[in-house]
Structure formats: structure tokens, C-alpha cells
């Protein structure tokens, strides 16, 4: 009698366990379906871009050709590459923005360290002030800055980006300072004190001990500083005028540049005219360097973002 009962119990339990398991895997499947759907929506513009940019004129106007062109048409890319400015633009915009990003990273580290590790009069007031400057739109401060740079003859150079970045006033600089500040606060003070007793100077304590420990913050700040400067077009347009070209800037004037480079002489030949294919190829080429960079640094970046303690401890 007892035996049967136990058998029954086991069966019931096994049934319950498999049901739970089944429920779990069903839920997982549902989650996968949802994530894939969302992922598709995320990728949709890039997929459209890729499809459009490989179509020639006949495919573009053909309503039957949507995702897969009849043949892959490379000329869109070569022409878009020329319109964007080619390697020269890539190197100049990349190089300049790299320089600015390095400066911004260094200054953010220094300022963040000051806010995190020292106590002085008005520190909290200054800190609050800094946080508040985050919501000041560039437009309010831009005009006098523009005139100032103009009077120093700094327009058409990298200076209007470099100087604010060096003094902690660059693009979205508040975020970078906050990230460093959070991170330096997590490094125990005992470490600094030990180094001080051993006779290390303040520079040594900062650069030799704290900065290497704050590597995740450095990765995050540097990459975002670079990306956000690269993608900036409002200020670059006004400060650089036409002297320095960047990819996004050339993209925003794509039609104009295209017509200059490929003036329409032969109206009968539709292959030569500006179309969606070329425009999409230009857009794709513009984001390609960033995508490649992202693929290379992504694992490190996300891990660092987690550890950079944006959400605090």
C-alpha cells in the first residue's frame, strides 16, 4: 500500500518537473522570438541600406526587387567614396577626432579625480554646478564662443574642439567626468595613503596607482568621446566651415558635393545621376568605420560600462 503511494508520488513529481521544464523552455522560446523581432527592427535600417546601396538604377525602380538586387552593383560605393572625400577625409577626421578624444579623456580623468578624492571649500557647490551645466544647450553658449574663436583666428582649425575638451567643456563632458568620479570613488583611499607613506608624490599616486586601476572608465570615456566627436555635425559645420571635412559632414552635404564632382552632362545616361543607391552607399560608408571599431571593442566596452559603475554601488 505504502509502496504504491510512493510510486504515485514519484510519478506526480516527475510530471510536475517536466511540466515546469516545458513551461521554462516555452518561455525561453518566446523570449528568443521577441528578442529576434526587436533585433530585426533594430537592424532594419541597416538592412535596407545594404540592399539599396547594391542596386543599380534598373533595380532601384523595379518594384519586384526589394531585398536582393539582381546583381551586386559596386559602382555606388566607389562613387560615394569619392564624394565623401576618400582616404584623405577618413584620415583627417579620424586623426583630428582621435586627438580631441585623447585630450578630453585626460582632462576628464584629472577633473574627476579632483572631485572624487579631495575635499575643499565649495566642492559640493562646484560639483552641483557641473552637473547642472549638462542641460545647457550648446546654442546658448555657442555664439560668443564662435566669435571668440574667430577673433583668435582659430576657425577652420581643430582648436575650437581641442581647447574646450582640454578644459573639461567638450561634447557631453559632464558624463565623462561623472564616470571617472564614480570610478575613483570606488578605489579605496587606503591605497593612496599607503603610497603616500611610502613617499609617492601626488602625481605618482594619480598617474601610477589610480589611473591604471580606472582602466574600464578610460576605455568607456575614450571610445564615447571619439564616437560623439566623430558624429558631431552641428558644431563641426560651423567651426570647420569647408576647410576640414569629416565623413558625417560630407554626408550632410552629399547632394551638393555629388553634383560638383559628377556634373550631369549626359542626360540620357541614368547611371550617372544621383540616386538612392549612391546616397545609401554613402551613408553605409560613413558608419562603416564606427561599426568595425565597435565590433573590435564591443566585448571590452560593455564589460567596462558595467564596471565603470554608472549606476553606482
Amino acid at each position, binding site marked *: 500500500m505504502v509502496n504504491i503511494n510512493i510510486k504515485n508520488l514519484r510519478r506526480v513529481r516527475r510530471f510536475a518537473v517536466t511540466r515546469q521544464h516545458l513551461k521554462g523552455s516555452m518561455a525561453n522560446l518566446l*523570449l528568443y522570438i*521577441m*528578442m529576434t523581432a*526587436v*533585433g530585426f527592427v*533594430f*537592424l532594419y*535600417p541597416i538592412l*535596407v541600406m545594404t540592399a*539599396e546601396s547594391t542596386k543599380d538604377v534598373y533595380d532601384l525602380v523595379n518594384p519586384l526587387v526589394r531585398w536582393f538586387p539582381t546583381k551586386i552593383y559596386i559602382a555606388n560605393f566607389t562613387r560615394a567614396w569619392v564624394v565623401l572625400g576618400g582616404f584623405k577625409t577618413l584620415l583627417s577626421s579620424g586623426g583630428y577626432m582621435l586627438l580631441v578624444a585623447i585630450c578630453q579623456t585626460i*582632462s576628464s580623468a*584629472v*577633473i574627476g579625480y*579632483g*572631485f572624487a*578624492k*579631495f*575635499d*575643499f*571649500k565649495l*566642492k559640493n557647490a*562646484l560639483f552641483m*554646478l*557641473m552637473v547642472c551645466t*549638462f*542641460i545647457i*544647450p*550648446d*546654442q*546658448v*553658449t*555657442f*555664439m*560668443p*564662443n564662435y*566669435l571668440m574663436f574667430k577673433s583668435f583666428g582659430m576657425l577652420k582649425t581643430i582648436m575650437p574642439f581641442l581647447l574646450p575638451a*582640454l*578644459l*573639461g*567643456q567638450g561634447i557631453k563632458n559632464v558624463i565623462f567626468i561623472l564616470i571617472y568620479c564614480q570610478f575613483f570613488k570606488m578605489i579605496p583611499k587606503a591605497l593612496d595613503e599607503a603610497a603616500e607613506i611610502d613617499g609617492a608624490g601626488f602625481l605618482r599616486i594619480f598617474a601610477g596607482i589610480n589611473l591604471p586601476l580606472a582602466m574600464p572608465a578610460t576605455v568607456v570615456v575614450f571610445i564615447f568621446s571619439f*564616437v560623439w566627436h566623430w*558624429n558631431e*555635425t*552641428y558644431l563641426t559645420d*560651423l567651426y570647420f566651415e569647408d576647410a576640414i571635412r569629416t565623413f558625417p559632414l560630407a*554626408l*550632410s552635404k*552629399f547632394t551638393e558635393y555629388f553634383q560638383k564632382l559628377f556634373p550631369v552632362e549626359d542626360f540620357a545616361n541614368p547611371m550617372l545621376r544621383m540616386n538612392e543607391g549612391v*546616397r*545609401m552607399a*554613402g*551613408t553605409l560608408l*560613413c558608419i562603416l568605420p*564606427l*561599426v568595425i*571599431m565597435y565590433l573590435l571593442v564591443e566585448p571590452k566596452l*560593455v564589460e567596462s560600462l*558595467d564596471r565603470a559603475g*554608472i*549606476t553606482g554601488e
Partner: protein
Amino acid sequence: MNMVSKLKLRSRKQWLGVLFVFPWIAGFLIFTLYPLVTTIIYSFSTVRFKLEGVSITYENVKNFTDVLFKDPEFKLALPKYLVQIFYFVPMVLVFSILLSLLLNNNLKGRSFFRALFFLPVIIISGPVVENLQTMGAASLQGLGSFPVYRFIHESIPDFIAAPVLYVFDNAIMILWYTGVQTLIFLSAMQKIDRSIYEASMVDGASSWQLFWKIIIPTIKPFIFLNSIYTIVDVSMSTMNPIIIEIKNAMFNIKKGFGFAAAASWIYFFIILLTVLISYFLFGRERK
């Protein structure tokens, strides 16, 4: 003696702190405070550029009244921007919470999706989005012919249907703006101890209750943080209608710097207002 040296050490440390923060103080004075004051002056005057320099004549509040009541372009841009803020920001917040809930599960391939959801933060920029929008790649094509869409469009009263349709029309852009926010919510959620979930499950809480009673209170400060981030992100993007207006006004002979300065100050106060609203909604500590 000891006291004196200790005091000296303390004041030395204070000065060191000031030294480290000094770049920011200098930068703030030069690149933020001075321009702020100058644009206040500009906004109350007419600014003309002459060979010998800038001439500024006091004009009282003419610029402000011009911006608010006379200028046709600003009149068009302002409602456009307000609609953008009042639909876009809540939607971005809702979707970033949903995405971070999705990512908060222990699934295989989680890091792949996390990387995918974060990609737009890297590639998004004014011209790219603009190009995508003109090519129609920024909204899902063919959505308008879906029965659900048509049903909402035709048979639900406008004031309910409008936000829903807005989500459909701007689905991609909303998702593309959620990257940073999702990551912040996700790492906040992951700091919740698993044992709290287990304890409340034992007490019979459903996952719906878990969400409202545990997850939402935990991430509430970050809702405030993210709402500010989103407001600033949207307000300062190159495609923003008001920003474009201000830029055009600057180099317009009729309007000039005075007009642009007044417009940017009005704009600043609107941003401030939205930040305050979000503070009253999410930022206050409940006693």
C-alpha cells in the same frame, strides 16, 4: 607642532584638490559662464558686425517677443519639438525598460543581443538619421497596410490612437535612442539580489508583482537619470527643429545674433521645464 603640520597637510591637500579641478573651473569661466552672460546681453539687443568690431544696441525684450509671437518659423518649430519631447521621451523610457527586462534573463546569446541593441548609440548621427528618413528606411515600410494599424487608425478616438500610432511610425527611431538607457537599467536590475526574488516567490508573488513591487522601485532613481539623458539627447540632436531654426537665424541678416540668442534662451527654459517635470514625476524621494 603636530597640530600645525597636520593643518598644513590638510590645507595642502585642499589646494591639491583645487589644482585637479582647476581645468574645469577655468573652462567653465571661459567657455560657459562668459558666453552665458554674453548671450543674455545679446538677447536684449541688436547685434551688428562691422569692420571695427561688434556693435550692440539695447533693444529691451523685442527679440523675445519676436521669437515667441512674430517669427513664423519658430512658431512651427516649437509645437513640433514639444510633441517630440512629450511622445518620444516616455516612449524611449518604456522601451528601454522593456528591453532591459528582456536582457535581464539568463539566456544564451544574451551578450549578442545586448551588443546589437547598443549598436545605434555608436552609429547614430544627424546626417545618417536624416538620410535614412528621406529614404524611408527609418520607419517600417508597409506597416500602414497592416490590419492592426488600420484598425487603430480608423476606429479608436484620436487622443488614444495618436500615441499608439506615433510608436508605430517611429518604432525604429525610438529603439535607436534606447541604447544607453537600456544599459543603465540593465546594470541597475542586475544589482538586485536574486534572493529577494526567491523570497517573494515563496510568499506567492507573481512576476507581474515582482516587476511593480521590486524592480520598479529599485530602478526609479535611474528612471529620473535616464529621462534627463533622453531629454538632453533629443533636445541637442542635430535634427531638432528648433536647433535648426536657431542656426538659420544666426546667419540671417534680418534676425541675427540677438534673435538667435533670445531663441536659445527660450529653448533653454523649455528644456529646464521638461527636466523639472521629470523631476516631479520620478526624482523626488518618497518619505
